[in-house]
């Protein structure tokens, strides 16, 4: 009898091309997503070596990090380096004949939003991208992770990666979430519980009733931040919600191929008794609506809580907390709901999907952004924007005083003009609160879309439940 296997084991086993005696494997890659920032040197490497892209039909490119999100962007990118980087991707996509969604295409958007949206992301696949948030695609039961540029070149040239197998970790969230508690709260609470290195060397499978209850959008939010917990990849076993999401997408299989795919996809679950090297269990009822106070995604605290004292921590984290508080301009003991914000950013590959915009708009309906707060919403893709406009959400956002923008990564990492000024404090739905992440000296508090909308309305970090 064969050993019970985890979902990760199964996907791994089905993609081993070659195994060396020391255990190092050559793994086949089904989909390679490419963006403009981490690919130019890889394409240049191919050119220098005279190598083609082995499987252009499995390679999908889109510019997202550098693109302006303002409505005049068709006029071109003002920053010369950003423009050159996007033009370089234009040229590489053309020269190597890979699938491409240029800035002018309505389907353009953040790479991790358009992969699932276009049906490029399917259960059981191996998916890589030169971007750490590739973990997002794990929501479909795909093994998806970020790689460096040398590996991007390796995949372009060979459609494979040299890998050692990671360990298996299971994060189970039992029970059901309380009102106003979201997928973002789950993922931030998991990181707070395990630490930013808790998943290092592991692939996380998220399981349990509360995970099953999430929509595909919510599952993508959870898997997106697996990397913030140190795990290269996060996975959720596919189920009917997954299949319903995928069915009919432009690049999803059709007809007999769909039936064959479904038969295989239904086997993509961890077997009973499969061994996990590490197991973490959280009760959904114990998960509070959270915001971050510091400069690491593990620095989450209940919105009803206070800024912690550095002395509450141990080891190197004491000094790190002191440094964070200094950077964030916060005093221990301050109630989180007393922290005033200057800016609000709703968007990113973590929370830039239609459900996220609906959740934020539900709070904003009939309300106004507080005086002095600049608020921006950046849909994750052109198609998310169109759908939101069809539902009238743009009018809600605009009516409340938000700027309604075009798709891109935007302020999440501020490679385009959307940045925080030094000292500016932002309620953000993105994934990283690192020093300087959204702009030098900028201060980021991570939270769910509804909570960010509540912060916009009240002008301070806010418990969305008090507005409901």
């Amino acid at each position, binding site marked *: 009898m064969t050993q019970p296997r985890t979902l990760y084991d199964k996907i791994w086993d*089905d993609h081993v091309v070659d195994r060396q005696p020391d255990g190092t494997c050559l793994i*086949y890659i089904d989909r390679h997503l490419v963006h403009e920032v981490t690919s130019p040197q890889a394409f240049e490497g191919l050119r220098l070596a005279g190598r083609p892209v082995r499987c252009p039909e499995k390679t999908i490119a889109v510019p997202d990090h550098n693109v302006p999100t303002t409505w005049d962007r068709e006029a071109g990118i003002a920053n010369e380096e950003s423009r050159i980087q996007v033009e370089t991707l234009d040229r590489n996509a053309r020269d190597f004949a890979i699938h491409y969604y240029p800035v002018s295409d309505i389907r353009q958007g953040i790479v991790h939003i358009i992969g699932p949206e276009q049906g490029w992301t399917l259960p059981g696949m191996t998916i890589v991208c030169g971007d750490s948030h590739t973990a997002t695609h794990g929501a479909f039961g795909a093994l998806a992770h970020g790689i460096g540029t040398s590996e991007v070149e390796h995949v372009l040239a060979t459609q494979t990666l040299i890998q050692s197998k990671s360990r298996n970790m299971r994060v189970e969230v039992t029970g059901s979430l309380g009102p106003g508690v979201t997928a973002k709260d789950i993922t931030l609470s998991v990181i707070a519980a395990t630490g930013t*290195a808790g998943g290092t060397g592991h692939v996380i499978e998220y399981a349990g009733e509360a995970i099953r209850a999430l929509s595909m959008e919510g599952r993508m939010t959870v898997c997106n931040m697996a990397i913030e917990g140190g795990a290269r990849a996060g996975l959720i076993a596919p189920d009917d919600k997954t299949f319903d999401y995928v069915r009919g997408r432009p690049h999803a299989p059709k007809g007999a191929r769909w039936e064959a795919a479904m038969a295989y996809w239904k086997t993509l679950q961890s077997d009973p008794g499969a061994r996990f090297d590490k197991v973490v269990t959280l009760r959904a009822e114990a998960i509070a609506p959270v915001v971050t106070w510091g400069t690491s995604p593990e620095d989450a605290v209940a919105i009803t809580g206070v800024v912690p004292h550095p002395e509450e921590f141990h080891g190197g984290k004491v000094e790190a907390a002191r440094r964070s508080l200094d950077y964030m301009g916060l005093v221990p003991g301050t109630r989180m709901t007393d922290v005033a914000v200057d800016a609000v950013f709703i968007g990113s590959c973590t929370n830039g999907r239609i459900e996220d915009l609906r959740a934020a708009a539900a709070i904003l309906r009939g309300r106004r952004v507080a005086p002095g707060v600049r608020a921006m919403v950046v849909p994750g893709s052109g198609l998310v924007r169109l759908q939101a406009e069809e539902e009238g959400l743009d009018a809600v956002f605009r009516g409340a005083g938000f700027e309604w923008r075009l798709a891109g990564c935007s302020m999440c990492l501020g490679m385009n003009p959307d940045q925080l000024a030094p000292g500016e404090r932002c309620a953000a739905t993105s994934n990283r609160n690192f020093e300087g992440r959204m702009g030098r000296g900028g201060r980021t508090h991570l939270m769910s879309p509804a909570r960010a909308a509540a912060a916009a309305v009240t002008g301070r970090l806010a418990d969305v439940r008090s507005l409901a």
Partner: protein
Amino acid sequence: MDRFTTLTGIAAPLPLVNVDTDMIIPKQFLKTIRRTGLGRNLFDEMRFTEDGREIADFVLNRPPYRKAEILVAGENFGCGSSREHAPWALLDFGIRCVIAPSFADIFHSNCFKNGILPVVLPQEAVDHLMEDAGRGANARLTVDLVAQTVTASDGRVFAFEVDPFRKHCLLEGLDDIGLTMEKVAAIDAFEARAAAARPWL
């Protein structure tokens, strides 16, 4: 890629946990389409003021450490973004080895692709080397990849583990793509098998 065998050099102490790749090389320097020239922006926002003046007490601005070839840091070094610009910037500055209690996975892997050796040692060993590194030019560490040891200036030796395949590639300066290209028949065979088993792909 340059080989890595042994290295004796000045180590810079950076006693911070969770040093992320946004710190190592901030996003405004990711707009390059080249691999070189990033050393001047290594740790940019910690090293320079907004108008470009050096921040005197940052370790890499202090005289002995301007020539550092080794970095000693806290746990979870290189977390965050997958940007290979982080190892490119370290390498361009002249750093060939980072010693820490733990590394983030993607950064760890990116180092090996660029001839940089990430050395994992227990916290206690890192603390000792951190203190040693604090002595500046008088304290030179020796990192020996063949023997898998780090020797402090007081002669104390710390052994470390390294993946045998990655060690081999680093010692020989091997190009991964070249190695994989030798297995093209296996890739062809896999594609044929996969096309039969999973025709929807």
